[in-house]
Structures are given as C-alpha cells and as structure tokens.
C-alpha cells in the first residue's frame, strides 16, 4: 500500500461516519422540508403535490405578509438597541481600559449571560414588566403611581427590550474583536495630524469597526428573526413573529406544508443576510497587517 492509498484510506475511515450523519440529519431533512412545502393540505393531514400555493399565500395573505414585515422591523429594532448598548461598552474596553486583566474580566462578564438559560432570561422580563411585576410594584410601593401600568408587558416594546437583552452579547463579541484589531498608531497618527477626537472617531475608528458592526447586526438580526420563545412570552396579541406563525402551523393549525414553506422563506432570508454581510465584509476588508 503506497502513501497516497494510505491517505485515502485514512480519509475514508475518518469521514465515512460524519458524511453519513451529516447527509442523514442535515441534507435529507432540508430536502424533505423543501419537498413538503409544495404539498397541499388536506384535512386532517397533507397530500403529496407540486404547487406553489403555499408560497403564493405568503405574499398575498396579510396574516403572513404583515407578520413577515413586522418580524423584519422588530429584528431591526432589536439589532439597533443591541448596537446602542454594545458600542460604548466595547469602545470603552478596547480603548479606555488599560489593564489587560480588567478588560478580559469585563469582556467575559458581558458574555457569560449567553450561557445562562435563554428561557430564564426571557422569563425574568415577564416577571419584571408584568402588571403584578417588579417594576410596577416598585413604582406603586414608592408612590410614583397608584394603579399598575399594563403598558410594559405584552407589546412590541417588551419584545424589543427582552430580545435586545438576550442577544446583546452576540453584538459585543464581533464589535470587540474588530475594535481591538484597529492599530493604535493609526489613531495616534490621526491625532498627530491635528484631527480632533470626534474627527478621529468618525474617520478612523468607526470605518475600521464596520466589519464588526456588520457581523454583530447579522448575528442579532438573524437570531431575533428566528426567535419564537420570547415573542410568545412577552409579546402581546399583535406581536406575533414569523417564527410564531411557523410554530403554529406545526401545532394547532396543523398545516405542515404551509409551515414548511414559511420555514423555507425564513431559511432563505437568513442565508441571504449571512451571505450578503459576508460579501460586504470581504469587499470592505482592509489589510492592516
């Protein structure tokens, strides 16, 4: 057995398991989901078919189209909120904290909540914002209000807060990485050339952190777009997200073809966003050694 053969054998031994596995649990299920999205519904289940009715409905029926638009809007707000929270923090860490240890400790502290149960983090906001919740009872206890305010929970505002809270670490990670990568001598050079702090920020720091911003927006946007747990917990009747509608199709609505078509749309949008941000990042990437 020569060297090449041995290598090929090694590769086969290594990969045969994973290839079968990935094919079986990834490719085949995606293909099946795609196939079922063309099926038609027939009570109580569905029948094989090839028609575009499900996709057509998503465009023309308000209950799908409006929800899709709303999901995009909310995800955008969540990303903006996460950005507003994360940028000052990461900037402070990257440029103002001088001790490496302190920087690492604060950084890790912002990331840790990611591993704290997602569900419980969403749930705490329900206990905070509810009419009998902590915020209301605090305001009543201190005498600021007399009646509990029901405006806090079960609306889009609560959803944005909760999801921004949950997904901010995903904004922090890429932002911090890109800010830390900016060579300090560029900033010093800008200052030496007499450009003020604000000017330096606008012309040097911000443009150079664009890859991080892009990656952060991609993460938070896609994650909130695909979330159906928080909306159901803290969103009200008018806060259904596309993922909630998808989940319903596989639950009480019992319309798997419709649900599969909607999933394909979600999949397409997420993959499109990821690919686009990847392209942009690559096109705009500066080699700073």
């Amino acid at each position, binding site marked *: 057995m020569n060297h090449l053969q041995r290598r090929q054998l090694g590769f086969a031994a290594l990969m045969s398991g994973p290839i079968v596995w990935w094919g079986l649990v*990834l490719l085949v299920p995606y293909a099946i989901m795609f196939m079922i999205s063309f099926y038609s519904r027939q009570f109580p289940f569905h029948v094989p078919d090839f028609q575009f009715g499900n996709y057509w409905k998503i465009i023309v029926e308000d209950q799908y189209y409006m929800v899709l638009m709303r999901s995009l809007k909310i995800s955008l707000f969540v990303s903006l909120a996460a950005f507003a929270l994360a940028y000052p*923090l990461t900037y402070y860490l990257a440029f103002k904290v001088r001790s490496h240890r302190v920087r690492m400790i604060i950084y890790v502290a912002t990331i840790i909540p990611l591993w704290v149960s997602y569900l419980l983090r969403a749930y705490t906001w329900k206990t905070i914002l509810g009419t009998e919740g902590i915020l209301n009872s605090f305001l009543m206890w201190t005498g600021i209000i007399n009646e509990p305010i029901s405006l806090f929970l079960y609306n889009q505002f609560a959803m944005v807060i909760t999801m921004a809270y949950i997904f901010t670490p995903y904004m922090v990670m890429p932002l911090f990485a890109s800010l830390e990568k900016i060579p300090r001598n560029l900033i010093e050079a800008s200052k030496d050339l007499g450009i003020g702090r604000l000017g330096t920020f606008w012309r040097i720091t911000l443009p150079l952190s664009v890859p991080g911003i892009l990656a952060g927006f991609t993460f938070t946007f896609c*994650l909130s777009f695909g979330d159906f747990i928080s909306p159901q917990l803290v969103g009200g009747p008018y806060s259904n997200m596309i993922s909630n509608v998808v989940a319903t199709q596989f639950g009480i609505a019992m319309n798997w073809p419709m649900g599969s078509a909607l999933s394909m749309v979600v999949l397409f949008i997420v993959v499109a966003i990821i690919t686009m941000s990847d392209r942009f990042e690559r096109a705009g990437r500066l080699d700073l050694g």
Partner: protein
Amino acid sequence: MTAYASQTGERRRAEPRKLRFSRGGRDTTGRMLGVATGCVLAFMYAPIVTLMIFSFNTNQITKLPLTGWTLDWYEMAFSNSELMAALGNSLIVAAAAVVICLTIGIPTAFAMDRYEFPGKVVFRRLVLLPITLPGLITGISMLNFFSIVGVPLSLWTVVVGHGTALTAIVVTNVYARLQRFDRRIEEASSDLGARPWQTFLRVTLPNIRNAVIGSSLIAFTLSFDEIPVTFFLTGRDNTLPMYIWSTIRRGMTPEINAIGSVIIGTSIVLLLLSIFIMSEPGRGRRKAL
C-alpha cells in the same frame, strides 16, 4: 458563540500597546463611557440577580416589597416529581447529545484540518449551518424527516436534534485547536518509532484535550437549555426547559425562580470551568499574570 472561545487565547497577544491619549489628565469621554459600561453590565445582570433574590422571598407573587427569606420554594421544587423527572430527562439528553457531538465532531474537525477534498468549502458551510440558522429550522426540518421516515417522537429524536444543532461547536473548537497545533511534534513521534495510533493517543489527543473538554461543556450547557429544537422533536416526555416553558406560560411561580436559580448557578460554574480549561494554562495564562 464559539468565536469567543478561540478569541480569548488570541487577544492576549495584542496586549502590550498602550494608549498615549488616555494616560494622565482628565478624560471626560472615558469616564462617560465607563459609566455607560457600568449601566450595560447592570442591565445584563439585574434581571438574573432579581430572579435569584425572589427565589428566596416568601411572597407567592414575584413583586416588591420583599416579604421575608425562605427556602420553601427550593424544597417545593425539589419535591416536585414532575419537575425532577424533567430534570433527569434533560441530563440524559444533554449527555447523549454530547456523545454524538464528539463522535461526529472530532473526526469532522480532523478531516477539515488534514485533508483537501472536493466540496470542502460547501461541506464546511453545511456543517456550520445548524448554529447559524435559527433552531426553529433545524427542529422543523427534522420533524418533517422523522414523520416521513416514520420514527415516533421521543427523547431520542430530541437527542439527534441536539446532536445535529450542537456538533458544530465541537467542530469549530477542535478545528481551531488543530490549526494551531505544530504537526512536527507528530512527525517527531513517528520518527522515534511510535505507531500512528500511539502518536494519536499520546501526542495528538493530549494536545486537543482542552478544546474537546471545553466544547463538550459548552455543548452540554446549551443542550440542557435548548427549546426551539426540543419544542418540535419531543414526544410525551418533557425536558426541563420544556417543563418550565409550559409552566410559565400559565403563570409565574416562585418554584420556577428556585429551580431557575439552581440552573443559572450551575451553568455559570460550568462555563467558568470551560473557560478555565480552554485557556490552556501552560501557554496563555502565565503571560496574562
């Protein structure tokens, strides 16, 4: 989420540069940013701390003012047989999912590190899909798959789902470690007469051990907390997050605060442990101190 793990090691190298403009003098921007950072950290931790405080509060309803300290809710949670069964299920599922992640993830990482093969780029993207796409998509595609193949839903379908969704974590971490691994050590080992399997067991494996343990811990924690995939793939049995989910949709109970605090505490300990393990004491730590 995995990007972080490989970053901590890299960050340390960028350390020695000091910022000229932040040294000495009054730095108002720096102070404002510091306050903002403090606020964001408070925002990140306040809800978690609140949950923990209320798990010790006597009042049946989660509201202010605090009425007194008690351990009753913990006692209640731990004597709730349904909850304990769910906890047991979650532990089994998470352990089994980790086994899948390792048996598929490690060979995949090796193949990607050591072999060039046609379609490698596509394969890599495919493997990373489940952590980039919303869990909902993984859940639904596998639900479609299992129903067409005729596999009844149970905890085992959940295990397969978690295995699929989380293997990428092991792949990325082990792959990152392998990329930094000096292959000449392996060559030296085989020059000294070691059989390939001896080299693997005594040279390669000890070198990637930390990445394996660390990513297993992360995969375990995430599986333990998983909802979107579990939601679609579970049969009659509940995992802990699913149990909590169905309970808190009906209303809030201090019992959930109690079990929630236990989960949060445990996952923070596990996370710190995995950070500690993955930061590779011999190399990075000494430099950091």
